[in-house]
């Protein structure tokens, strides 16, 4: 595997191949990625048609290697296959990603919010969700000559 400049092999996977690729990495005896380190979402609002990314960090405990997989989905139809059938740990990580980005994990047994309250309607880590009052004037970049 060829790592990127920071030491982890990174690949973008087509959405319809994701489950098959992860399952292959999990099962193949030469690779044996038996450990799901992390799932998280990223929002790229300017990238039309692929606004939401889901990033998977996989790890092989036996061979001590890591890899990073990414899938991109449009924000209008954010549907990604769930990995709960392969890794039990994917359950809460996917719930967290759903909670913050609104990614629908197809096949997830119990897709609910986990860190925010159930009545919430926003997906707070998307870029359009303001962190502070947008009308506030004292933190604008031009105040600092940027």
């Amino acid at each position: 595997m060829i790592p990127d400049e920071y030491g982890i092999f990174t690949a973008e996977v087509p959405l319809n191949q994701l489950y098959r690729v992860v399952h292959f990495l999990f099962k193949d005896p030469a690779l044996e990625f038996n450990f799901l380190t992390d799932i998280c979402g990223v929002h790229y609002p300017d990238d039309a048609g692929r606004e939401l990314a889901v990033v998977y960090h996989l790890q092989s405990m036996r061979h001590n290697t890591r890899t990073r997989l990414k899938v991109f989905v449009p924000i209008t139809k954010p549907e990604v296959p769930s990995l709960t059938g392969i890794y039990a740990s994917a359950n809460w990580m996917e719930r967290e990603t759903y909670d913050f980005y609104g990614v629908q994990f197809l096949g997830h047994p119990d897709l609910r919010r986990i860190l925010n309250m159930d009545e919430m309607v926003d997906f707070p880590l998307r870029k359009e969700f303001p962190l502070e009052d947008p009308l506030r004037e004292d933190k604008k970049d031009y105040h600092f000559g940027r």
Partner: protein
Amino acid sequence: MKTNLEFTAEFHQPDIPDIPYNTLNLGPTHPATHGIFQNVLKLDGERIVSGEQTIGYIHRAFEKIAERRPFYQITPLTDRLNYCSAPINNTGWYLTVEKLLGLKVPKRVDYMRVMVMELARVADHLICNSILGVDTGALTGFTYVYQYREKIYEIYEEICGARLTTNMGRIGGFERDFNPRVFELTRKFLQEFPPVWREFENLLTRNRIFMDRTIGTGGLGVERALNYGFTGPNLRACGIDYDLRTAEPYCSYEDFKFDVPVGTTGDTYDRYVVRNEEIWQSLSLIEQAIKKIEAEPPGVYHADADHYYLPPKQEVYKNMEALIYHFKIIMGEIDAPVGEVYQAVEGANGELGFYLISDGGRTPYRLHFRRPCFIYYQAYPEMVKGQMLSDAIVVMSSLNVIAGELDA
């Protein structure tokens, strides 16, 4: 026509719904559940049939806040993840940024970091194991060893001025050099603590009641533990020799000699024993680190990187260059390179990972914390299934779930 007697007989039909199991809310007000975890357990008598957790809503949106902050100002957020061992989190964050910037720190800084991180690990395991004693009914051990956490905090205080949320160090090194009092206090700690810890072990490790309460409870097979994403002492208790300090060494851990203790069955007792052994290993690591620090040329406590290392305050008062860099760094004027970095450190209860996406701006585009507690706490219902109700408390306690890390 119904008689009055018939009517009352019909009215008094016992209307007991057919519920085979009792439901019990374990927490959030139980002392072992830290005030936020609610476990809805279904009980058959005193035996747990199934459980479901809610992890509370202390969510503080660290990841969102981090998107508006320059890199230095994210350190206080990492303090509050696992507040029992804040220096490990701080160092993990600095390592992430250093990896992004391509900074190399001197060996002496690495050894200083190792010393601080191992002190933090001792403090964390100390609390976990002594609280495990409390949850089985042995308060004495806890009150006895708790003062030694305070001694560790005094060392932190000497290094950086803070005790719990340390905010220790800088990107590229430390804020200032360790003064002689730090080494003096650490040596004193290394002398005074082992006999006390030995005594604590004598109190619990071969204690009949403690063994009965912990052996064979809360175990999870190796395969399930891996599948559930266990790391750290909880995984090593299952018998997997995986430690980031040896598997992917950071901070020059490869220069040290230490063992990675592993258990066999992964039950509560094994987790306790693994943590105990890790404390001994950490004490040896601290001792080695002090020797190595003293063997290195003195006075080197940061990397030679003006653009990223925040200059010491004394310099800022006297030196114009330092003042300019201080201002530029604090205001986030110096941009980071574009890149994606994943850096993990062996936190006190597992792999603490930082996934940082930088778009070249002054703040991270996206920052994700991989919190070990959040990932393995979901295995809890499976671990207590079929156990007694009293085991549920002990299992939760030995998992070392820290609320701050669960809800980042």
